[in-house]
């Protein structure tokens, strides 16, 4: 065991946890005031629910002994065999590894909630997330990080471009379509009720993302340091390029554009951060800000109501970041990784594309199936009257502001 590595990963785990309240604040500000609590509860509730699932069986399905490259076995049910002993090939105790990975299973379904905010029934959301973590998150996490087939294939995803961002983005698109539009979408104005909250939220997300990305090295070394630096740079260029794109196209640089661009840059650098250098990070973040902005603009023409733009930012950013890893990856940055297309290894881009396609197909089909099951069990939406009055009073019996 290495004490520095262990301490580093524990601190990083706490940073990743902080991203979920950060996300709640980010999303909460974007919702209308009558839905602020239900929107925030979608994130906070998972700090309880997803954590318990992780301990009971989620960790085992993700990181248990491999079954056919598809899923982990049941050898770690209820945390069995997880403790002080050092993880294979690592220098930290398995308890720390389990805790760190457990923060990712909280935030990934929480990210999806942005697509169904302001209309999904809370009971349906709870059942959906239980099934989604079990059927979608755990297998894909196993494929990429737990010794599954994508990892065997050499697919590179340092901190969750596939497992977290593309995964939540595809699930968000599926859910936005199946749950349906909010009442009045396209005719009424849906204006964020408090962008100051949203800006505070991106501050916390940016801060926590250092733990998310650098911590994914699971050691305090040079690769972690590189991940830390390029994460910051991609956030910076993502924020700038989004703001400049809208300044040119819509005449005004907006604060929400800055916040959204930072998330686009952060999401895109996530799979790449342990394999690419700073120049690549500038490009990855800069391109992310523009393409995610264009993707959000295209939403109106495509006609689905992804309330808080999970698809345009995390889905598109996840695809771009994962493919960009296949372009820019360098074994000079990380000897455990691979070279990308620009260093003469075109096949890596192909492997990354396989990861993208597999994640999209599996996640879309499984998410749709889960939603139809939940719809048959309890229905997906609040009633029209409840939606008009706000989900906060209908679902939680509270209002966010008694001024």
């Amino acid at each position, binding site marked *: 065991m290495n004490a520095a590595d262990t301490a580093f990963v524990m601190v990083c785990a706490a940073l990743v946890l902080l991203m979920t309240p950060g996300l709640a604040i980010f999303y909460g500000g974007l919702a209308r005031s009558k839905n602020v609590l239900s929107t925030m509860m979608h994130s906070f509730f998972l700090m309880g629910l997803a954590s318990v699932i992780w301990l009971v069986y989620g960790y085992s399905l993700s990181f248990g002994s491999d079954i056919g490259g598809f899923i982990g076995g049941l050898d770690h049910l209820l945390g069995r065999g997880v403790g002080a002993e050092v993880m294979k090939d690592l220098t930290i105790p398995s308890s720390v590894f389990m805790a760190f990975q457990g923060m990712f299973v909280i935030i990934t379904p929480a990210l999806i909630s942005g697509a169904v905010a302001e209309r999904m029934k809370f009971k349906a959301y709870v059942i959906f997330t239980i099934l989604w973590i079990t059927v979608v998150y755990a297998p894909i996490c196993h494929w990429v990080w737990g010794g599954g087939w994508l990892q065997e294939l050499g697919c590179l995803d340092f901190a969750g471009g596939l497992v977290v961002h593309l995964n939540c983005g595809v699930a968000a698109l599926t859910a936005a379509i199946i749950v349906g539009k909010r009442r009045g979408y396209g005719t009424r*104005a849906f*204006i964020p009720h408090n962008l100051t909250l949203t800006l505070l939220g991106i501050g916390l997300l940016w801060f926590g993302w250092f733990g998310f990305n650098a911590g994914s090295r699971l050691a305090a070394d040079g690769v972690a340091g590189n991940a830390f630096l390029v994460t910051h740079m991609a956030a910076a260029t993502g924020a700038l390029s989004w703001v400049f794109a809208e300044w040119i196209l819509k005449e005004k640089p907006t604060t929400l554009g800055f916040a959204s661009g930072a998330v686009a840059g952060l999401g895109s650098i996530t799979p790449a951060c342990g394999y690419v250098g700073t120049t690549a990070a500038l490009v990855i973040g800069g391109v992310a800000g523009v393409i995610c902005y264009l993707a959000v603009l295209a939403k*109106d023409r495509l006609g689905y109501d992804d309330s808080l733009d999970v698809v345009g930012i995390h889905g598109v950013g996840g695809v771009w970041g994962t493919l960009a890893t296949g372009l820019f990856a360098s074994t000079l940055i990380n000897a455990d990784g691979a070279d990308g297309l620009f260093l003469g290894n075109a096949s890596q881009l192909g492997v990354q594309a396989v990861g993208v396609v597999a994640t999209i197909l599996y996640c879309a089909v499984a998410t749709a199936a889960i939603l139809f099951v939940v719809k048959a069990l309890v229905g997906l939406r609040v009633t029209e009257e409840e939606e008009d009055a706000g989900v906060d009073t209908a679902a939680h019996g509270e209002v966010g502001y008694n001024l």
Partner: protein
Amino acid sequence: MKKIEVIIKPFKLDDVKEALSSVGIHGMTVTEVKGFGRQKGHKEIYRGAEYLVDFLPKIKVEMVVSSELVDQVIEKVIAAARTGSIGDGKIFVMPVETVVRIRTGERDLDAL
């Protein structure tokens, strides 16, 4: 007695209050309101989606005064609240039948 209702731009409230004090008006009720007239709304943009916001924030000042003060009040309000650009607001004057001060039971002009 007349009730005077004045709709003004929010940043003019202090000027209007001072102008009214100078003619001896020492009580008024102020409400934050939203509305629109000839001044059209403005455009807001969130992640590229553009919304026309019709309802603009205004301040409504209400007061009840003796009838002979009405012209003076109107003059003072116009002087204080006018910017000359569209959206300066309106003044409404309407008759009042009775005023009662709850604490003492005094009525009408004594109660103002």
